[in-house]
């Protein structure tokens, strides 16, 4: 595979052809925040937190869906980008009802951690507080729409890794919502295998296991890679 060289924040670096900008940026130790990206899942390009500036183009590029190119000159933390990232997280916080103090994943939430890292101490936008239900019909998992950021990680994990495609989106715009099967209570779903991958990959407290609520168990989204690697290398064949 070919090698390309590019400039990342004024430093000359090299990358393999076909890699995404995000991979390369992270390999080089730059901390670029993401929410919808998760190693092992297809890219969605939806949260837009990973936008970077590239010299020669006026457009901002979402690093997760942009392949590296020879001679790129990338900046990841300009004043404008940091400002936009803060605004994006603020918009997410205003969109649904995120009350950390009563959340099962308080202290272990990616959205919360990101907001803290970006120094967000208040939200400038009017909170929408939509009237959304909590689906607690499943025996082991709970889906709380009020904490969902619509990153789609659960949908992709369910479809691409588990192969069940129980979860999907409904509605559009700010009315978008995660649904189970044909928008039915999770407990009545016949396609759900109860594997719990959605729980592990969900970055917030939107999907949690019942035991999480009491015990505060950490989510482990990185396990996807272990599954996928094992599947690819066929290490479980016997």
């Amino acid at each position: 595979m070919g090698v390309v060289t590019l400039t990342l924040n004024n430093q000359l670096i090299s990358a393999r052809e076909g890699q995404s900008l995000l991979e390369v940026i992270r390999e080089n130790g730059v901390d670029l925040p993401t929410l919808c990206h998760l190693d092992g899942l297809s890219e969605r390009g939806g949260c837009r937190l990973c936008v970077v500036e590239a010299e020669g183009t006026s457009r901002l590029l979402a690093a997760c869906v942009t392949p590296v190119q020879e001679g790129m000159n990338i900046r990841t933390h300009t004043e404008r980008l940091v400002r936009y990232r803060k605004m994006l997280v603020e918009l997410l916080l205003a969109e649904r009802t995120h009350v950390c103090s009563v959340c099962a994943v308080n202290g272990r939430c990616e959205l919360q951690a990101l907001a803290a890292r970006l120094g967000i101490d208040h939200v400038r936008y009017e909170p929408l507080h939509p009237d959304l239900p909590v689906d607690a019909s499943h025996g082991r998992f709970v889906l709380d729409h009020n904490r969902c950021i619509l990153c789609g990680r659960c949908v992709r994990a369910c479809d691409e890794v588990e192969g069940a495609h129980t979860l999907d989106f409904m509605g559009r715009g700010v009315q978008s919502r995660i649904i189970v099967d044909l928008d039915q209570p999770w407990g009545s779903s016949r396609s759900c295998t109860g594997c719990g991958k959605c729980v592990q990959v969900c970055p917030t407290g939107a999907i949690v296991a019942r035991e999480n609520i009491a015990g505060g168990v950490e989510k482990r989204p990185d396990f996807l890679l272990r599954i996928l690697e094992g599947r690819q290398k066929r290490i479980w064949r016997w």
Partner: protein
Amino acid sequence: MNRTELQTMAEAERSRQQAFRCRFLCCAGTPCLSAGGGAVQQALKQAVAARNFEASVEVVGAGCMGPCSRGPLVRVIAENGEETLYERMTPEKAARLVEAHAAPGSTTLPEEWRIAEDSPFFSKQTKIVLSGSGRVDPERLESYVGEGGYSALAHALREMTPEEVCEEVVRSGLRGRGGAGYPTGVKWNLMRKAPGERKFVVANGDEGDPGAYMDRTLMESDPHRVLEGMALAAYAVGAEQGYVYVRGEYPLAAQRMERAIRAAERRGLLGHRIFESRFNFRIDIRIGAGAFVCGEETALMASIMGRRGQPVPRPPYPAQRGLWGAPTLINNVETFGNIPPIIQRGGTWYAGYGTEKSRGTKVFALAGKVSWTGLIEVPLGITLREIVFDIGGGIPGGRAFKAAQTGGPSGGCIPAAHLDTPMDYENLQALGSIMGSGGLIIMDDTSCMPDVAKFFMEFCMDESCGKCTPCRSGTVQMVRLLDRITGGRAVPEDLERLEDLCMLLKETSLCGLGQTAPNPVLSTLRHFREEYEAHIRERRCPAGVCDLGN
């Protein structure tokens, strides 16, 4: 069918038309039909039957004739070729029309029923795409063939290589009429060279902009022209399958396109071995479910493939990876409508219209506060003043022109100071607006610009697909801020917040919908900032539209 048979069909149709003593062409487009055009056509037919004129007088439904606000329209073509256009027809008037025209010398009609065909509304226009609209019967293939239809396709298949077809389009300087204005010939050449065994051609008829109906009219009035344009494109790029993606709100357009496809297939003008050549091309219709975002090409392709209509990041562009991974050419319906005349009369002829960088003509849907509203086709480079005051007949009620909104929710407003700017892609962009697909809404001094911006922002909020954060959540917050401004509840920081959000959406959104959604706000802020400030600081609406609660 071969070329000789096409000529025979055209001649037969022409002599059939000439055999009539007089022909009544009734507009059967959606605006005229909703104004009662169906009843008028029915009344004409009854009046003809009552006098036993069926053999010598023809009554047909034709396409859009232009001045939609004057509908229902009826065009009468006499034996000697003389044409008269009548406005605001009613069934009662229709009977008298038959008396006056089919039974000569019997009665004369009031002069005010007529529209003078030499009025500026018509004389300032140049009809290329719409040349057949209002003249051909969209329900009959023969009618289109009689006007020279499908001869460009026959000519291309017989005497031109795909490269030459592309070259002719390059020479014409035609740019995509969907809004972005990408050079059509360049796109075709890219597609032609793209490797792939299967290729697709898609006509984008998902026209969701408020106030715009160019594509609907073309599909309703002259469906075969779109099909011929698509077939020429397919030949040029090597595709064998095409789709017409019709907006769900356009049932009549879909129905006419469907009928046209079946008729063309039956005569061997579509399908296998077209004109007895080795070229095969099939077209199917896909009807949208009512999502503005499906006009965006990647979302449109997802919808055609039966998936959720959401955009995906580009690159890869459709010409590289489109429908089912195959290279796909997507052009607007109006773009395809330009192709047959370009092939027939040459790219150089077409390039003779318009300006240096924006060649040819553009169809606009003229709406709002002008005396004449309707569908117009003008050479690019025409000034806004000519459109508003000559073609549109000026602002009614003696009021003042305030602004023209172009490009729908992705566009912006052009204030009175720029009335003399030539309308082309670059100039409009420089003014902070866009050509867009051709919606043109004229506003007078009774319009409140923050209120207009709010209207378009609400539209974008409703139509956002919800995939990316800035568009999904940002549009809602922008609507809220605009609501505070127009409601007299805003503080000066709100304007700052609004501008910040504009830049965020513009720069970080995933697709064109989000990237251009702030344009109405940005352009009204640019040209009418004082109105926003009056709302915020003085709690006053200069246009007297907003209820500020005082």
